[in-house]
């Protein structure tokens, strides 16, 4: 347990990356959107929220790619490094998710910040009550963090070549998926019939996160630094 705490502390030794940066970037993008909407009645709703999800993706890469060698050098086992990092990610996702949910409430309350600007409300998936928004955000942020960790670990194990293979592999899978979907419009197995509701989608994302989580650990077990 102490090992997990030490790993978490290690990531936070310079709090800026994990605690401040996601919000600073989001605030910056938010302000720009505010200014633009004020001036021109700009894009509405915006995709500004994607920025914090991208940040978590980046932090995932950082945690399992950049910070990994020194972390293992300090004597963390791979198991405790992975677990400690994951626990940190989950805690951050929960906290930041709550923040996003509260901002959504504020946005509704001010009718889109007085400008009908929708940053924290996203139709279909982030349009419900605050606690469901919290849950969905939590799952989404965690998913992107773990996905980022995959990139970090793959880079450490197989370098640039491995990364390229990983990306190309995913692109190939997606293309195959699209072909399958094209060919069978009514084929339920393509997955579309899975998601009639926002909660259904959240559940799928959560399942995906869990799969990546387990897979990530399997990848980390044999990484050399």
């Amino acid at each position, binding site marked *: 347990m102490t*090992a997990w705490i*030490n790993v978490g*502390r*290690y990531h936070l*030794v*310079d709090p800026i990356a994990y605690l401040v940066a996601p919000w600073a970037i989001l605030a910056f993008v938010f302000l720009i959107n505010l200014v633009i909407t004020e001036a021109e009645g700009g894009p509405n709703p915006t995709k500004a929220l994607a920025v914090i999800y991208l940040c978590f993706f980046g932090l995932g890469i*950082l945690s399992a790619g*950049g*910070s990994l*060698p*020194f972390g*293992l*050098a*300090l*004597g*963390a*086992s*791979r*198991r*405790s490094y992975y677990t400690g990092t994951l626990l940190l990610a989950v805690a951050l996702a929960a906290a930041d998710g709550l923040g996003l949910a509260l901002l959504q409430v504020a946005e509704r309350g001010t009718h889109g910040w007085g400008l009908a600007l929708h940053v924290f409300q996203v139709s279909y998936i982030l349009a419900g009550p605050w606690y469901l928004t919290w849950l969905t955000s939590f799952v989404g942020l965690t998913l992107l963090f773990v996905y980022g960790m995959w990139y970090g670990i793959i880079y450490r194990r197989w370098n640039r070549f491995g990364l390229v293979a990983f990306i190309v592999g995913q692109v190939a899978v997606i293309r195959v998926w699209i072909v399958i979907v094209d060919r069978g419009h009514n084929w339920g197995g393509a997955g579309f019939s899975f998601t009639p509701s926002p909660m259904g989608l959240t559940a799928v994302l959560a399942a995906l996160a869990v799969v990546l989580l387990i897979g990530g650990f399997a990848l980390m077990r*044999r990484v*050399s*630094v």
Partner: protein
Amino acid sequence: MTPTISVSGLTRRYRGQRALDDVTFDIDGPSITGLLGRNGAGKTTLMRIIATQEFASAGSVRVLGSSPVENGAVLRRMVLVREDQTFPRLRVRHLLRAASWFYPNWSGGLAEGLVADFNLPLNRNVGGLSRGMRTALGIVIGLAARAEVTMFDEPYAGLDAVARQLFYDRMLADFTDHPRTMLVSTHLIDEAADLLERVLVIDQGRIVLDAAADDLRGAATTVSGTVDAVEEFAAGRAVWDRRSIGSQESVVVSGVLDDDDRARARQLRLSLTPLSLQQLVSQVPGRSNQDLKEDQSA
């Protein structure tokens, strides 16, 4: 007594090559052992495997009585300082703080003193450090951790002679006050020779020499003088090297020379120069451990 480090049949195959080939040795602590060999001989691979940063293809490692792989209890009592360590992009003081959490014996006082000794800029990002400063940072972490098993892999990249001597002095001083098991790999052998109790020489992945440092001193001598005198002296002894120019000859004779030998050499007007540890070690690949031992008793 259980050896502190026990390596048995360790092999590491990589792209058809054997980076390590059936390596076996035990190290008892507290002690300072030198791991010597040329670049690419396998020193770094060996230390990385002991520290579980890399995996062996075959064989076993035991540290402090158990396998260190994924073993937190052992890992926190062990530190490996590598000259090619990848650091996260943090400031020096952050890295030192992080290290202080992981090592139960961490000494903040020692770390402070060493930072001052090496003039490390605490607030600078590690990315902005020179090679020598990165090495110094590694040294600070390695020594201040006061880990029971402390390993240094070529801890001198970018350090000038003065800084290196500072490292040896500080290492020796802290070792004296807090004895532990130290394994130091180096190819600057003569600098460290006086600190080592034991020497392991590795060449192309194999251990080619495993001896006490004291046994190696005087183990071979360069004998020079006139050809006749040298040949007379060297008769019946194992000779490793022979060079001549005109009527002068110089051979390397193995086996410790006693007072009688020296007296005889004086009579024959020969000059005797013992081989330094560095010279000895560079002679070893191509000769087996057996050869050296036999030469000693001849």
